Every structure is written in structure tokens, then in C-alpha cells.
């Protein structure tokens, strides 16, 4: 099943192509019942942990009559499995009792997730999909930037470390990695905020902004957003680089001592070619698994970092929605991540097939 010598590994024969398509299709079909099960479990858990009406009185308790009415109007009086069914397939086929006389008087308006309607946020009173969509770009910008920075630096540091194992440099990097990795993110974020924003300003040095994605009232320019991104990206990356560089280092260490690397050297290949074409490529395999696992969670945002730097991302949205038991938004967010996990697992497997000729999908 190996790739014939002299032919690039990514060119499949037709039957391999078919195999790949069948594999993707099979995995997608397998994912459907899995996602249903995940959605049901999440719905049941969310419904049992919070009360969306508990914060609807603001600083006052919700009155009895308002609670009764809202419970009915928001559909929370229905048994939980009915609520799940409405979330799934909508309730536009059902007469609902909105005036409380026990008789259905108005058809529901929800279409259900299967028809692309995540329901309305209980708090913002607008489609949960719109609430989530508003946060998508800022999260992607923050998390994507920090992730790319993490990968690039971790790869560099990890490889550099692995090629000089147990030297003073390697040991220093190892020590630093462990220190950074064991620091809580809120501490790193707040320290950076106080040093580079507050203390620098007070000392008359060039300083960075404290909060937000850009300054309100100022034109939103690349420089403006970039200035606001420095501290949150740095907070996120410092910890991740520390962790990732350890993976890269150990993966590289394993590979550089392998027989085929010695063979490559023996064949007279240059050190650079051996490193990049043979060593790194093989060392990248466990990293691909890790990236495949991590990427879906990037879309969930960074709860602590976004909160501290007032970054308008998914992490903040998730916490806000959780605080107020806003199920439609919470379900939307969690299901988005669930779908992405399935998709990225599939993509990881496909990428594996591309970069590792030993793996085929039959």
C-alpha cells in the first residue's frame, strides 16, 4: 500500500481517491448519531444546572406572577424532553398557550436547529446564531494569532532544544517552559496589564492600551487593533508556547536518533535537508494530532484572557450566557465546538494520510 518511489505521496490512485471519499462519508454518517447524543446530554445538563429567570428581576427577585408568565412564554413550563424536541425541530407546528388560560392560542415561531434556528437568546432576545456570530471574528482573530505565534515559536524552540539536548541552553529553555506552563493565566494577564499599560504609562514610557479591541471613537485601523492585541496574545501564547515546545522537543528527540535519520546522513544529505525533510516531518505526526484536538477549542475563545482584556470574544459570551443560564446561546456554542471537534478529527485523519505514507484509509 506504500507510495511508489519517485511519486509524490499526495497523488492518489483513483481507487485510493474513492477510498478517501468513502472514508469521509462513513465518518460523517457516524458523526450524526454522535452529535444527536451530545446535544441531548448537553441539553439535559444545562437544563438542570441553572434558572434563566433567576436573574430576570435585575437586583430584585422576579415576582411570582412574572415568573409564571415568563416560564410559559419562554416555553420553560414544558417537560425537558419537549423543550429539547422544540430546540431540535422547532415548535411552529404547535399551538402555544401564551395568555395562560390553558388553551393554545398562537403557533410557535421556532424552526429548530435542524432548520438552522438555534432559538432566541433569553437575555438579548435575538437569534442565538446572531449573538454567537458577533463574537466569531474577534475570537478567531485573537485565538488564531496567538495559536499561529505559538506554533511558530514552539516549533523553533522545540527543534532548537532537541538538537542540543541537555546542554545549558536546553536546560534553561526547559526550566523557563515549566515556569511559564505552571503560571495561572490570570496572573500572567494581569501582570502584563499592570506592567505594560499602567506602570509604563506612569513612568512616561510608551505603553499599551488596557482594555478592548480598539479605542471607541478612533478609526479601526490595523495598527489600532494590533496594539490592543499585543497583551492578550502574549498572555495566551506564553503558556501555550511553553507546553507546545515540550511536545516538539520530545517528538524531535525521538526522531533524530532513529535509524533512518542516520541513514539519511550516511547517504550524504545535508543537515538542513535531513532536519526538515526527514526528521521534522516525522516528528510532526504527534503534533498534528495535538493541533487537530486543539483547533476546535480555539473557537470557544479564552475565558480568562478575554475577560481581563475586555476582548469581545466567545469566551466572554460563554461565561455571560452561563451566568444567566441562557440555554439557546450555550447550546449553540457547545454544539458549534462539538461539530468542530468531529470535523477536525476527520481532517486530522486526512492530513495524516497525506503526510504519512504508511497510513492509508482502507
Amino acid at each position: 500500500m506504500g507510495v511508489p518511489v519517485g511519486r509524490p505521496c499526495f497523488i492518489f490512485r483513483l481507487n485510493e481517491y474513492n477510498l478517501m471519499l468513502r472514508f469521509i462519508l462513513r465518518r460523517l454518517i457516524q458523526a450524526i448519531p454522535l452529535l444527536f447524543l451530545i446535544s441531548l446530554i448537553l441539553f439535559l445538563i444545562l437544563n438542570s444546572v441553572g434558572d434563566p429567570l433567576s436573574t430576570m428581576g435585575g437586583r430584585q427577585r422576579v415576582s411570582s406572577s412574572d415568573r409564571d408568565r415568563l416560564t410559559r412564554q419562554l416555553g420553560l413550563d414544558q417537560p425537558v424532553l419537549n423543550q429539547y424536541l422544540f430546540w431540535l425541530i422547532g415548535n411552529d407546528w404547535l399551538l402555544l398557550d401564551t395568555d395562560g388560560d390553558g388553551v393554545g392560542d398562537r403557533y410557535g415561531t421556532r424552526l429548530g436547529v435542524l432548520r438552522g434556528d438555534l432559538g432566541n437568546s433569553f437575555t438579548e432576545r435575538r437569534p442565538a446564531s446572531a449573538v454567537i456570530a458577533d463574537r466569531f471574528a474577534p475570537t478567531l482573530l485573537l485565538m488564531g494569532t496567538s495559536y499561529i505565534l505559538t506554533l511558530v515559536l514552539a516549533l523553533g524552540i522545540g527543534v532548537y532544544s532537541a538538537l542540543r539536548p541537555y546542554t545549558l541552553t536546553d536546560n534553561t529553555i526547559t526550566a523557563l517552559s515549566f515556569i511559564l506552563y505552571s503560571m495561572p493565566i490570570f496572573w500572567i494577564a494581569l501582570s502584563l496589564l499592570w506592567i505594560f499599560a499602567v506602570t509604563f504609562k506612569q513612568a512616561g514610557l510608551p505603553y499599551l492600551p488596557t482594555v478592548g479591541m480598539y479605542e471607541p471613537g478612533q478609526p479601526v485601523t490595523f495598527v489600532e487593533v494590533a496594539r490592543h492585541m499585543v497583551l492578550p496574545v502574549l498572555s495566551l501564547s506564553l503558556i501555550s508556547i511553553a507546553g507546545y515546545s515540550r511536545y516538539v522537543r520530545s517528538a524531535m528527540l525521538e526522531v533524530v536518533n532513529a535509524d533512518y535519520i542516520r541513514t539519511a546522513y550516511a547517504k550524504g544529505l545535508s543537515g538542513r535537508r535531513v532536519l526538515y525533510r526527514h526528521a521534522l516531518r516525522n516528528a510532526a505526526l504527534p503534533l498534528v494530532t495535538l493541533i487537530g484536538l486543539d483547533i476546535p477549542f480555539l473557537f470557544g475563545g479564552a475565558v480568562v484572557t478575554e475577560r481581563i482584556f475586555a476582548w469581545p470574544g466567545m469566551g466572554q459570551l460563554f461565561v455571560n450566557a452561563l451566568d444567566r443560564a441562557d440555554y439557546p446561546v450555550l447550546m449553540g456554542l457547545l454544539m458549534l465546538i462539538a461539530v468542530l471537534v468531529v470535523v477536525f478529527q476527520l481532517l486530522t485523519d486526512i492530513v495524516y494520510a497525506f503526510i504519512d505514507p504508511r497510513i492509508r484509509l482502507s
Partner: protein
Amino acid sequence: MRMKKCFVLVLTALMLMSLVFSAGAQDTKSLSLAFVQEIDSLNYGLYSSQFFSSILTSIWNSPPWVFDDNLNPVPRLATEIPSADNGGVSADGKTITIRLRDDIVWSDGTPITSADFVFTYEMFMADGNAVDSRSPYDKMDSVTAPDAQTVVVQFTDVYAPWLTSIFTQVHPQHILAPIFEADGTLDNADYNRTPTVSSGPFVVSEWQTGNYILFSRNEAYFDEPAKLDQIYVRFVPDDAAQVAALINGDVDMGIFISPDDARTLQQNGVSVVTVNSGYNEGLYFNFKADTAPTIKDLAVRQAIAYGLNRQGIVEDLLRYGDGEADHNVVATSFWYNTPWANDSLELEAYDPEIARQLLEDAGWVDSDGDGIRERDGERLSLTWATNQRTLRTQVQAVGQQQLAEIGIEVELVNLPSDIFFGSYGDANPVALGEYDFWEFSTTPGSFPDPNHVYWTCAEIPSDENPSGVNDMYLCDQELDALFAAQASNADPEARREIFQQIQQLMYDQVYWLPMWHDPDLYALSAQFSDARIAPTTQFWNSANWDAVS
């Protein structure tokens, strides 16, 4: 060479961007407010009950009257405050007549008339609208408009707190009626988050989700135009980040400042002002029939009153400045520091000896020498619940130690807020009577009106009344009658007298134990000028706010 070209190109691009940056700085007068919570809707009352939404109301939506920083009502859309003397309140107290100015307009130039008031009432009561609260509109028979400048509100019974609760926002019929007619609901109207017209000194220009809301001066405002061009409300959820932003001058106002942060801010040139919004922190006791027999003993509650060093707690944990006035004070009643307070009540001074004696006299003695008292085989062990707010957990820890010194064992419980403030119907453990006493801060429901229903018999939760708010399960017939009497009495002086009796009774029976007066702390940058923050309509003078350089 190629690298060099690339470098020059990037540098040029950066310089151009910097130019855009500096050229964009406009000569506008603006102030930024930091909110630790992003609001859900600007449509306070119909679709939001959040404090932060309520305080923004005076910026963009004018009610018939606002309350100034001394709690005096100041007419805004109305020509005068309705009263019995000017014929605005009927002899039986059930009919309120509001007379409107004839020069009031929405920001698009459309006159504001009584039809907008009738429409607002109808929207609260429409079955199609899942509004946050119908109170007090559900207590009205009708709202009518005999002419364009007259609004007649007919209550079913006398509703004493009308002045502080009716028409806190008025909505534009000409904008919203077509939406309601088309959709059968206003639940999803864009107006709720970005109102297209305003009746306040500012209009809503933009809401960048997660970032900020921008208010710009309402050029068609019917009163003196606002001094500021713009107000930004920035969402800064983290307390420490809010403090950093205030110190750096990135925001000009912070709200709900903790005493700890107030200290830091004052040291960095940010001023802190105290606003009494009627809140008092206190302990609520469990009187449920089939649980917690211990706490129902008056002597135990009195012993807690004497055994907790409330003055010390306030001075140690709630001090924020160097001066005498720079810390909170211990309250003496639920209506402390309001015009309705019973000022004859004296705080039970911290005295562990009296506390021990009270317990001894009631038969609570430490018979097995473990430091905790018993009576008839029952151990004097109590549970103290609250949410997870840091200050409260600190107070709990101190209180637990102090009560142990008088022989009361206390187990501490900390619940997430959405569970702690839940209801019987949601199996909230507080409402189910699982704890002996619990702590939180609140205000009379329609503050500055004193009306409150927490301790009324009708509000005791049950399977039949799962939303009842009397989690204490207290049903004292005398107290109940007093609460009912004040709620249906339109004479302020008579109500004040009834409230004196209510407070005396609650004090004598220790039905509620005040912990501290809980005003809101606001931080203001040196740039902020003329911020006369009021207790209820906080930003009532936002038209006068100014930014000084």
C-alpha cells in the same frame, strides 16, 4: 535587496496607518463609562431588568419625571408631579393624571404624546410580548389618553408606590406599533438594542457587541442640549482591568467599585463617590415549619445580633479611604438611610457576654465541653449561605469565628448566583428551606418607595405558589397586616408611621438582621465634571455632564 524593499514597504504602510490613526482623532467632547456587565437590552422594563440598563435610561429615554441626587422628583415629560393638591391624584388615590408638556418631541421630530404612554402600557400587557416584568402595569385597570397632553392611569386598588414605578421608560408608538402589528410581538425588535429614536439628551448611535455603546447628543432634545458630544459605555468585565483602565484614563467612570479597589483608585488620583441606592446587606432567617427548629428561637437570633461584630466587619472589610466617612456603616433596619427609616432603632453593640447570657437563659449550654452549645440533645449548629462574592465569603469567615466564640457552630455554604437567587419552583435550596440563615443585599422593590413583599404571608413559596419570594417562610399576622396597610395607603405620612411600626417589630423579633448599609461606589476620573449621580435615576443630569481637560 529584496528584503530591504520589503522592509521599506512595511515601514511606509505602518507610517500611513499611524497617520490615519492621528488624523482620526476628532475634537469631540466625550466621556467613557466602564460597565462590568454588558447589558442585554436598552429597553429597560420591557426586555431588561438589569441595573446597568436601568441607569442608562436617563441618557436616552425621558420618563415623565426623574429623581435627583436628593431623591426629589423632577418633571421631565410631565409639566408637574401629580399630587392630590394639583388634581393629579384622585381623592380615592386610585387615579393618577399626568399632564404632559406640549413641546416634547422624539429625536426624529415627532411629538411625544399621551398616545405613546397608552402604547407603552399596552406593550407591557400584550400576551405576545415576553416582557421581563409587568409590574406595576398589571395593577392598572386602564391607561387612557383624553387628549394629546393628558395621561390617565386607573389603578384597580390604591397602589402606593406609583410615583417610583410607572413609566420608567416611554416608547414611541409611531416606530413600534407597525412592528408589533406585523410580528405580533416586540420580542425580536431591533429597537430593543438600538433604538432608532430617543427622547433623552442623547441618541443611541451604535452598539458594538462586546465592545461599547455610543450615545451622541440629541440635537432635537426638548430641554437644554447636552454639553458632551458623545458618551461611550465600554464593557470591561474584570474588576482589576476596570481599575487599570480608570487609572490610565481609558475610562472616566467605574461603577460598583469594591472598597479594596476604591483605596487603589484614590491613591492614583481617581475620586470615589458614594451613592445611596437604598441597598442594605443583611441576614435572612429560616422560619419554615418542618425544618431548622434552632434558628426559630428568638434568643439564638438575638445572640447572633450581639455575637457578630458588625461594626468591626464594616471597618475592617469595607473601609476604602482614610477619613471617617470613607467606609460603610452598619444599618439598623431594612429601610435604613431612607425617609422611611425608624431612626429610634439602635444597633445591638458587639457584646459576646450578652450573647452568651441570652443563650444560657434560653437553655443553650455546652454540656459536653466541645465549645458548642446544646439544648435537649439538639446541637447549636447552623448553616450560613450566600453567593460566591469575595466580600461575603470574607465576612462569613470572620462571622463563623465570632459565633464559635459564643458557642454557635456555623457551616458556611456558597452557591453560584443563579442558584442562590433561584426560586422554590427551581428547587433552589434556599427557597426549599435547607439553610438556617443566608445573606444578601437588596432594596425595597420600588425604591425610593418603601414598599416590600419579602416577609408577607402570601409570598410563602409552595407547590401551589412556586414563585413566592418569602423564602423565610415567615408569616407573622401582625407584620402582614402592617405591610398590607401601607401598600394601600396613599397618604405618605400615614405610611411613614406604619413603617416605623414594621421596623420596630422586625427589630424586636430579629426577623432580619442588618449587616451594613450598602451604597454603590462610583469612581470618577479628574476629567469628569458635574456628575450628580442619583440613587435611582442615576444619570438624571447627563445633559450637564462635561469633560474637562
